[in-house]
């Protein structure tokens, strides 16, 4: 989650500006299932990669579950959606036609185009900076924002704890072998153990934070969240990409409003 060692241009932009730009793109893409708007946005997003310090390799490493999910979603849509046009493939109950292939392709591209900006945002934004911006610029309550930030740090610890509890329980004779029911029971027990530890950790962390004066109404900020000229470009970029996607789809006659 840390950005240690990344110096890409977009890491210097205000997280809130990046957040708004990503939101605009996502919103537009959520409105239509068609391959033109999705691929327009996708191309523009690929062009932004170097600015966020992202490479195709890094993208695959961080986002492969999302990418696979988009591909899978596209494939099943192509097979299962209502057929129209020429039939391309027909295997028993599965069939794929030109029309359903187009819908499936649109679905996959749209999934990718929606996932990519989120990955872009995460790879060039430090969570602490995002919290600063949300509290100082978006004026969200600082108790909520900082509490969430501190809790997120515990999530990483929980992953380690999960592994330890798994081993500790195997050492008590609770194995992950056996029937699906036994496995389910073992997993539930392990989850309960983790929950107990998470609650304890969280309450100790809460005491630590309270003892450091957290929770008062007034607070100063050591890291001031500021806007710069770069943020205007970021916002503009978000508007251009989302507007470009809509216009291209309307011009190509593929705009397909989902609601």
């Amino acid at each position: 989650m840390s950005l240690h060692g990344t110096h890409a241009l977009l890491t210097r932009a205000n997280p809130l500006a990046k957040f708004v730009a990503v939101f605009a793109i996502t919103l537009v893409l959520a409105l239509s299932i068609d391959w033109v708007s999705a691929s327009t946005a996708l191309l523009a997003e690929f062009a932004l990669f170097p600015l966020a310090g992202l490479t195709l390799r890094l993208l695959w490493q961080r986002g492969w579950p999302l990418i696979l999910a988009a591909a899978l979603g596209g494939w099943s849509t192509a097979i299962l959606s209502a057929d129209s046009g020429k039939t391309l493939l027909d295997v028993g109950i599965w069939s794929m036609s030109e029309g359903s292939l187009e819908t499936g392709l649109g679905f996959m591209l749209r999934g990718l185009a929606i996932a990519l900006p989120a990955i872009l945002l995460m790879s060039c934004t430090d969570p602490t900076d995002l919290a600063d911006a949300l509290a100082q610029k978006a004026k969200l309550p600082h108790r909520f924002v900082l509490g969430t930030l501190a809790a997120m740090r515990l999530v990483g610890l929980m992953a380690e704890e999960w592994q330890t509890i798994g081993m500790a329980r195997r050492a008590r004779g609770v194995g992950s072998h056996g029937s699906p029911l036994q496995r389910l029971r073992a997993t539930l027990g392990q989850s309960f153990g983790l929950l107990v530890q998470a609650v304890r950790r969280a309450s100790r962390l809460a005491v630590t934070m309270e003892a450091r004066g957290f929770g008062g109404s007034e607070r100063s900020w050591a890291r001031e969240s500021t806007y710069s000229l770069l943020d205007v470009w970021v916002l503009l970029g978000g508007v251009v990409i989302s507007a470009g996607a809509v216009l291209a789809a309307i011009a190509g006659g593929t705009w397909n409003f989902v609601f």
Partner: protein
Amino acid sequence: MPEAPTAVRPAAVSAQGWGWRHAGRSTQAVHGLDLAIRPGERVLLLGPSGAGKSTLLHALAGVLGDEDDDADETGSLLIDGAAPRAQRGRAGLMQQDPETQVVLSRLGDDVAFGAENLAVPPGDIWARVHEAIDDVGLAGFPLDHPTSALSGGQKQRLALAGILAMRPGLILLDEPTANLDPAGVLEVRDAVGRCLDKTGATLVVVEHRVSVWKDLVDRIVVLQPGSSSEPAVLLDGPPDTVLEQARGMLAAAGVWVPGYVPATRARVGTASGELLLSAADLAVSRERPRRRGFKTIPPVPAQSGLGADVVAGHALTITGPNGAGKSTFALTLAGLLAPVAGTVSAGVGLADGAGSDPYAWKAQQLISRIGTVFQEPEHQFVTGRVLDELMFGPRHLGHGEERVDELLERLRLTHLVDANPYTLSGGEKRRLSVATVLAASPKVLVLDEPTFGQDANTWAELASFLSELLDAGTAVVSVTHDQEFSAVLGGTELRLDSAAAAYTEAGAA
């Protein structure tokens, strides 16, 4: 303009007939406490568990729940004549678990957190942050250093820096070094000493290991569980006087009085038995092979080239600095982690028809052969009642229930059979976790830091009990920093240095 560097006004504490009952409890945690601490005084609080030491520190830090949730406060407890809760930042509290003393993910941000909450102007905050980081000896790290990459001792010093940046007049330490290895203990103690010398702040510290803090404090207060007939403060005075007066009583209460090693049972048998388990050319890691897209990347071993032999009736002690992979090695030996390279193989007598690779054993096959006691007892609790906890192994194995009574008796748990394991005290939890693992009658017992944070009584019981087990033919493998403990067990020491190869010969004493 940054403010003057030493703008700390030491705080005075006064308690008059103070008592506190936690919500949902029928008895008071502290009853009728009368205590006055002058500004700049340094006080070590001692006493048996249940004497209300932590409750007092939490109250002084202003973090005890409000009275509205059914808790009950009597008398008065004041800092500089005012209620602690009304003076945020006047007192700073450090607790035991280093992981929860860190709030934010970058070092500088974490130190600044308290000062921000007190609405200190941003310009002053960074001056305070630099000074505090310097004072606790973390100046070598950049401000954006990830806090997750710090050791336990460094995390506690970071917490101290965060407290110092608030410029508190009262520093409260609740067993600050109980979770640290010996090097970490001294790191933290020395940093506290330096900072007190510089700021002159008042100190109240709770800690079982008296020798660590004795020379740094100028007063020891011994608390006892309060009742209507006896005062909460049992003894109060200069360290040497109190330790002399109360030596016997403190030792009996499990306090680690300087120069006192509790009596333990001596080992009688030293004959080496059968070879139960051996490791050869072992590389270990807690991480599993990772998937990066389509590729599988084996983890970087924490330690490699390890070898060891585990022999019946013989103790193997694994020592070395933090981060040397001691626990990881022990867990791999115990069949809980897969080796990155090399092998762990069980002898015929131990395997008993289950194959030679402990990691491949089913959980039920494992527990009757190798028992592992984890550092944190709570990780191993699987039921909601002490008796069920002990019967769990035998019930699954279908034998061994008769041993449970003996273990209950031997580890003084008989009066707790109906209690919920999570509600026990630290020492009781430790004894229970050892008993539950032994209930399955394993031939090899692996313990990860069994004496960490334990009082002298639990320590002595544990050491004596293990020496008995060894004489009865169980092999005991323990990861420990505790030299007195390994001296009681005898046997072989395997010292791991940071990521260097090590090998030990079987039976070499």
